[in-house]
């Protein structure tokens, strides 16, 4: 007799039970419908317990502490480096640099790689749909080195303009920085193809994975990107732990980003030689407890499976787009269907400012974000100043989306009483 393994169904109820914040009561309000995970995710009890457990039982500074606590903290910290490498299918744990967040990871590359490699007139390319954290660091290093900036355009429905990408590749850029998923629009970009084209043009490729790594399977060897930046706090981990993945051959050639402890081999008053990677890029005491908590977040995500999470978000994202289409006066910004699109919906409402939409939703305990989402260039390109954005994650349900749609109708009704 053969054993058959049932395909595990996506059990949102049991997932939600692991997230205490979702069950927090707010006086006079219905339960929380949290639709702002693109800004920061909520944390499961296992991650929260790990943080208190770390400080109660393991806390000590890592590396070179010749005593039990420090050895255990060091082991736990380095174990997460191995786990992260596995999670991304990186070739080696030495390719994993712990930072605070995506922003720090991109600044690290811009400064450490950029100062060593960029000459006046060199071209840095990024897209119009980048988050400010994948724009401003390149502007800064361009100012410092005399490098030029080139911008991949977007189409009216919020996709990359691939013709402008090809035209830029013909100019042989030194670096191409591109987001895998747009935080403002939800667009999923074909970064594997783009990386291949960029490499053919001689460029180094950085992928902003802040909105992709938490939601879909990401394999750095398959993508063949040179750098991947993402934040732990958007994927169930604590704030304070993020990751820069970099190919070791590239990291090896880069000078340090910050100077200090842990990143040296030998220091005299005149001269310092650098530690090997990744320690070279981890000056000072890292967020040890946060990194260990991040490891538990990875374990949690793995236990459910990134492919299952992505499928759940695709289904719920499609349900959300359908629900939004039925709301009067609502206009979706960005891709209009779920093709190459994540569970992020940015929209405007006739006659109601996005900030007011979000405030009315908050009255109904529906949490969304309003504003420019740190992506002013792409909103300007699409002719809007700000939007309201709802984003789903593994713990969201159709009920959350129904609550969103009902509250949006209420918002429209408040500002258009005669249409009721």
């Amino acid at each position, binding site marked *: 007799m053969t054993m058959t393994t049932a395909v595990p169904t996506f059990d949102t109820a049991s997932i939600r039970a692991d997230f205490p914040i979702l069950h927090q009561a707010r006086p006079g309000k219905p339960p929380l419908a949290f639709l702002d995970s693109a800004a920061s995710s909520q944390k499961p009890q296992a991650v929260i317990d790990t943080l208190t457990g770390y400080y109660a039982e393991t806390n000590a500074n890592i590396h070179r502490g010749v005593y039990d606590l420090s050895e255990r903290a060091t082991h736990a910290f380095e174990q997460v480096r191995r786990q992260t490498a596995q999670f991304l299918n990186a070739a080696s744990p030495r390719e994993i640099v712990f930072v605070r967040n995506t922003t720090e990871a991109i600044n690290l590359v811009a400064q450490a790689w950029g100062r060593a490699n960029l000459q006046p007139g060199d071209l840095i390319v990024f897209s119009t749909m980048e988050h400010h954290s994948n724009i401003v660091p390149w502007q800064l290093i361009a100012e410092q080195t005399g490098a030029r900036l080139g911008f991949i355009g977007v189409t009216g429905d919020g996709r990359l303009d691939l013709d402008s990408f090809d035209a830029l590749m013909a100019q042989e850029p030194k670096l191409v920085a591109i987001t895998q998923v747009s935080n403002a629009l939800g667009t999923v970009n074909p970064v594997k193809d783009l990386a291949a084209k960029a490499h053919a043009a001689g460029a180094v490729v950085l992928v902003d994975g802040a909105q992709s790594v938490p939601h879909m399977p990401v394999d750095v060897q398959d993508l063949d990107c040179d750098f991947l930046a993402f934040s732990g706090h958007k994927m169930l981990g604590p704030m304070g732990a993020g990751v820069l993945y970099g190919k070791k051959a590239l990291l090896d050639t880069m000078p340090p980003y910050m100077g200090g402890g842990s990143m040296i081999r030998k220091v005299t008053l005149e001269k310092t030689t650098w530690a090997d990677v990744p320690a070279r890029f981890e000056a000072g005491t890292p967020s040890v407890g946060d990194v260990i908590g991040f490891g538990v977040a990875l374990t949690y995500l793995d236990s459910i499976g990134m492919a299952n999470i992505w499928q759940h978000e695709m289904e719920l994202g499609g349900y959300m787009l359908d629900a939004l289409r039925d709301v009067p006066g609502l206009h979706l910004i960005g891709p209009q269907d779920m093709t190459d699109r994540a569970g992020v919906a940015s929209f405007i409402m006739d006659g109601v*400012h*996005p*900030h007011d939409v979000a*405030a009315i939703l908050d009255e109904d305990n529906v949490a969304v974000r309003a*504003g*420019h989402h740190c992506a002013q260039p792409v909103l300007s390109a699409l002719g809007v100043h700000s939007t309201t954005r709802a984003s789903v994650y593994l713990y969201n349900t159709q009920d959350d989306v129904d609550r969103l749609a009902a509250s949006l109708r209420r918002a429209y009704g*408040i500002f258009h009483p005669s249409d009721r």
Partner: protein
Amino acid sequence: MNDATDSIYREIILEHYKNPKNRGTLDPADFTYEDVNPLCGDEVRIDVRVADGKVSEIRFSGRGCAVSQASASILTEMVEGQSLEDVKSIGKEELFDEIGIPISPARVKCALLGLKVLKAGLYGLDHASDELEDI
């Protein structure tokens, strides 16, 4: 689903948002000032004409949420005809009283943007945000 009395979206805000008083610009004006609330991108510009030490004409323009635009509209009604000295002494509580609805901490910056812009213009300041953080 929601008790309407805890909502900021009551008649006075909605009415001033849809039918603002003193909306527009003045050219020439005795002083003009504009500023943004960088958090949500609200923009307010205020143009003022002064005669006999009083606000003789005032217009506001800009874009943003209902709270910021309605508050600016209410403010222009408050100060029209007042002496500049009286306008300088207007505090946030006076404006909140005029609005007449509890303003939650999250919306205070929206509600006060017009007053910040007006005062910065009155004082001829380069930048409203630092000097008038607490109005």
